[in-house]
């Protein structure tokens, strides 16, 4: 193991300092990314645990595993944990934190200490949420709908609301940091038109985080005020308007879906050219469609309220605008596909996840068009059709992209390779498990099974059993990568600086990178994705 001995002697961000203090007080964006990785993984498994309990209850038509009250808490905690403590931070706070400075040739983010602060806010919010959970939980659904949340339920709405409020600030700070970094810290020659699409996606995401999250924060404060002080803001009995809550809530929470999916799109835009050995097709269109998604995403929120009592005129406007978001999303899908056309495609693990993303996101997106259509939406509102639709986007899309990105950049993060065959195997399991879990839910919803009930008529059982079976397979697919990533940190093959033969500045520095990313500030003289100039590494070629 002579090579191992030499590589471990080299100083990098992981071995520069040791001890708990050096991690908890670090301002290195790469170390903060790892702190985030550990924390969001923890919450992912908590949220997943709730999901499995939900699926277990729905194995049989009768409400036999838990009572209705407990079931309400289960889906609420599942939603809150998965959305605010896993999906929103997932790619931006882990991969974005690690890669944004490196991809633009910077030493760190613009505000390293604010970056650490954002992690501490996340942890404080997480502890509040855990405390809320073990002392009784909430049953409002992750949406906190009023007047139930302010006037009726006797569960821990205030603590959950404040927890999400704090988590929101963590998210705002991450977005702020990215915007300033991307504007100010680009290496010489790294013009806007040379930025990797991962950066464009994160820029668009940051816009949403900065401009949307404050509205959620204010809305939650209003909920707490109404509940504690009895102000009449949303409660009709006190002169408020419950739909005002929904307007404000969805003004953030629809774009929040794009906080989850845009970074995944950025990941896919990196993986697809690399394993097709081609420059991305339509760079500008893909870059600008990220911005278009971020902006259009703010114009569609009331499609969540079609049956809630908004005016028909308003519903029609929001329906048309909702169709509009499909355009930039479709531009992306077509451009990724066009990139693969006549490329030399390798079916490596990250590419399998990218394929999974493209397929599942397309299905999620197309069923979104069903829901944008007023007539169909009336029929399927609050059914499992909606549940299936948003899980195709948020799990089939966002989580697939996250896992793809984790595999793609794992050699850079850890300096080790994961076992490729296990990676492919897990990707396959995830894909199969996912579809078995959620495809039956489309049918269930279309047949009329409502969401958020702990029991259902016996005729729905077969499809529910399929869904529950799928969820256990999916769980295996999610545990596997965690196991072999941990294994690879010690026993994995040593990765060189660019094991995939990928373009991008992050691959031009050592794996794992030194603390300040580059020995000297790089100067960029080439366009992004110049795969015609980069030879594919032998190992990848063999696997084709």
């Amino acid at each position, binding site marked *: 193991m002579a090579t191992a001995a030499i590589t471990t002697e080299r100083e990098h961000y992981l071995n520069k300092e040791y001890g708990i203090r050096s991690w908890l007080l670090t301002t290195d964006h790469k170390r903060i990314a790892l702190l985030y990785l550990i924390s969001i993984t923890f919450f992912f498994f908590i949220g997943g645990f709730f999901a499995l309990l939900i699926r277990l209850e729905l194995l049989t038509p009768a409400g036999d595993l838990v009572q209705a009250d407990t079931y309400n808490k289960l889906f609420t905690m599942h939603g809150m944990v998965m959305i605010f403590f896993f999906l929103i931070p997932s790619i931006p706070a882990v991969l974005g934190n690690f890669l944004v400075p490196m991809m633009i040739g910077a030493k760190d983010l613009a505000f390293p200490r604010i970056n650490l602060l954002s992690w501490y806010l996340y942890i404080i919010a997480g502890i509040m949420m855990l405390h809320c959970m073990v002392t009784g939980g909430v049953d409002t659904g992750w949406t906190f709908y009023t007047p139930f949340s302010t006037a009726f339920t006797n569960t821990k709405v205030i603590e959950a609301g404040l927890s999400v409020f704090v988590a929101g600030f963590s998210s705002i700070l991450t977005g702020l940091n990215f915007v300033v970094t991307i504007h100010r810290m680009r290496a010489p020659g790294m013009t806007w038109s040379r930025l990797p699409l991962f950066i464009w996606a994160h820029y668009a995401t940051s816009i949403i985080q900065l401009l949307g999250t404050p509205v959620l924060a204010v809305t939650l404060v209003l909920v707490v005020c109404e509940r504690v002080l009895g102000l009449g803001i949303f409660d009709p009995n006190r002169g408020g308007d419950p739909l005002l809550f929904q*307007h404000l809530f969805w*003004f953030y929470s629809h774009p929040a879906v794009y906080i989850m999916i845009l970074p995944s799109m950025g990941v896919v835009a990196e993986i697809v050219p690399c394993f097709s050995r081609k420059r991305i097709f339509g760079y500008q269109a893909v870059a600008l469609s990220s911005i278009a998604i971020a902006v259009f995403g703010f114009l569609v929120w009331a499609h969540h309220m079609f049956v809630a009592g908004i*005016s028909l005129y308003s519903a029609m406007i929001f329906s048309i605008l909702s169709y509009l978001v499909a355009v930039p999303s479709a531009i992306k899908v077509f451009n990724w596909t066009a990139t693969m056309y006549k490329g030399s495609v390798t079916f490596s693990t990250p590419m399998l996840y990218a394929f999974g993303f493209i397929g599942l996101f397309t299905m999620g997106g197309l069923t979104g068009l069903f829901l944008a259509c007023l007539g169909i939406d009336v029929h399927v509102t609050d059914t499992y059709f909606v549940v299936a639709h948003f899980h195709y986007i948020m799990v089939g899309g966002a989580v697939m992209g996250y896992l793809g990105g984790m595999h793609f950049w794992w050699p850079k993060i850890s300096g080790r390779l994961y076992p490729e065959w296990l990676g492919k195997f897990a990707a396959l399991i995830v894909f199969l498990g996912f579809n078995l879990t959620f495809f039956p839910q489309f049918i269930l919803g279309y047949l009329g099974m409502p969401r958020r009930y702990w029991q259902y008529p016996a005729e729905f059982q077969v499809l529910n059993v399929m869904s529950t079976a799928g969820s256990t397979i999916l769980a295996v697919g999610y545990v596997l990568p965690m196991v072999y990533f941990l294994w690879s940190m010690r026993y994995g093959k040593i990765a060189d600086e660019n094991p995939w033969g990928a373009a991008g500045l992050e691959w031009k520095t050592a794996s794992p990178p030194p603390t300040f990313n580059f020995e000297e500030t790089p100067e960029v003289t080439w366009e992004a994705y110049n795969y015609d100039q980069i030879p594919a590494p032998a190992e990848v070629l063999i696997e084709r």
Partner: protein
Amino acid sequence: MSEHILSSKLYYGIWIALMVLTVVTAGVATIDLGPFNTIVALLIATSKALLVILFFMHVKYTSEKLTKMVIISSIFWLLLLLFLSLTDYGTRYAGHG
């Protein structure tokens, strides 16, 4: 980054102005101005927000393009929220008599 140092006098002045405006808000709430109730309340609130943005957040003295961009887009996004909500509130009871 052009650091602009402002005298603490100015800060206290702004603070007092904010306090006075708060008292005015509370005072005005006890007088019935008819349709102007909301308008006056919003005017006072907007001027308070302006004071905070211009002085406490140093926007009056910034030459930074990025800062201006953030402020302009925030205002634009606020207008989006108000305008698109009004498509509902403006027409919700039309036809209900």
